[in-house]
């Protein structure tokens, strides 16, 4: 299989769309209520060292994805077990995003369409794109990124006209604890989910910088999350915002420019469709790539279709209802700790130790 490459810019675009993927419609946590925007800023600061750690793992072994790194650092048996953990995480994340996708569409427009059909369409598109190679995904993301950016900037500007600044007060009424609590939720969903990119950024062109991709991706993606959160609080305000499952969609539906320009909420749906597709495709890629490495096969593409179909099957019964899906967010922030914090830390420490020992000649170089 010929080596595929993505540019630094394509990697960055993929990361930004991945970050805003499902968060755009599901919204960030409302633990801090009107101070949620502070939680977003704090979450970006909290995520920065973690994302730099992910970038370091990519940087230590250029051209090798997380599965190859794990294999190289921990050996064959332990490496396969640890890789399985990451494969499960990528697979499960894909399932969650697919279900978010189908629930959202069933709720807002395709109310009579069975969810499995929506899910099938999404994964078939994802399989088609990733089968084309990661380069196709990179090029497509670059094309879509500009459209998404224009729509989001437009929405934020329009939301500004409907903003009630009194919605941001009183500030820090509940103290700092809810802000920190909310920040951790935003850290785990969606910022630290970018651990998945340790399997993608190995395809960066030689000479490209993984730190730049992670750093800029975090600031741009986090900035967009901040703008969306500010818009939602400004337009809807609390406690009304807490009662909405899809706050951004409701926010945009309230925008009414001169009683002539209205019903912009379809734009939110379009952005979610585009970003969601990118997120699903990346999760599919990561799962198939990890499985291929575990089973010592060269081509991940052959495994894309069965993985995608398994995604749909699990997405059908992962949650009994939409309420359960939103309640899962509270569980997810703890569930994700081993995958987003503990395992990357362990891999990083062992990788650094192995590299240093191999440099000093204490262990044989691979």
């Amino acid at each position, binding site marked *: 299989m010929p080596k595929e490459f993505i540019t630094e810019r394509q990697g960055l675009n993929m990361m930004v769309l991945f970050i805003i993927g499902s968060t755009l419609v599901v919204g960030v946590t409302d633990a801090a209520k009107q101070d949620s925007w502070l939680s977003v800023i704090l979450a970006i600061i909290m995520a920065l060292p973690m994302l730099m750690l992910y970038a370091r793992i990519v940087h230590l072994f250029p051209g090798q994805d997380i599965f190859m790194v794990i294999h190289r650092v921990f050996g064959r048996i332990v490496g396969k077990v640890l890789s399985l953990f990451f494969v499960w995480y990528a697979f499960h994340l894909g399932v969650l995003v697919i279900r978010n996708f189908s629930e959202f569409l069933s709720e807002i427009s395709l109310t009579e369409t069975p969810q*499995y059909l929506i899910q099938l369409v999404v994964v078939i598109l994802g399989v088609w794109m990733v089968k084309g190679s990661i380069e196709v995904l990179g090029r497509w993301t670059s094309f879509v990124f500009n459209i998404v950016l224009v729509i989001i900037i437009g929405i934020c500007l329009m939301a500004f006209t409907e903003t009630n600044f009194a919605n941001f007060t009183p500030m820090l009424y509940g103290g700092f604890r809810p802000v920190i609590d909310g920040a951790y939720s935003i850290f785990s969903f969606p910022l630290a989910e970018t651990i998945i990119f340790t399997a993608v950024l190995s395809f960066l062109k030689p000479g490209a910088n993984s730190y730049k991709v992670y750093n800029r991706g975090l600031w741009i993606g986090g900035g967009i999350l901040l703008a969306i959160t500010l818009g939602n609080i400004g337009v809807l305000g609390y406690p009304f915002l807490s009662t909405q499952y899809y706050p951004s969609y409701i926010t945009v539906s309230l925008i009414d420019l001169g009683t002539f320009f209205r019903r912009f909420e379809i734009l939110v749906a379009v952005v979610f469709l585009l970003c969601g597709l990118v997120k699903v495709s990346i999760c599919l890629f990561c799962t198939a790539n990890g499985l291929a490495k575990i089973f010592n096969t060269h081509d991940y593409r052959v495994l894309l279709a069965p993985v995608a*179909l398994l995604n749909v099957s699990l997405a059908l*019964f992962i949650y009994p209802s939409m309420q359960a899906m939103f309640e899962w967010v509270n569980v997810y922030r703890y569930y994700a700790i081993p995958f987003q914090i503990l395992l990357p830390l362990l891999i990083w420490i062992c990788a650094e130790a192995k590299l240093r020992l191999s440099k000093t000649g204490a262990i044989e170089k691979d």
Partner: protein
Amino acid sequence: MILIMTLVYGLFLLLDFIPIYRGKNRKITWLYLSLFILSYSMTVLIGFGVNLPSPAPLIKSIITSLGIF
């Protein structure tokens, strides 16, 4: 649902699996078929109205038992 899903799975077999089968890589063929059959079985069971156990409550109970939620 079962009919539509069977049609989709059949199309995947025709368009995706047959070239892989012809590639004569037995490991990939078996891995593909295992995932495929697992997925199709789950879909058919859901189609017949069987309540399959979701991993979400299990994960939640593990986290609860650790006392952090």
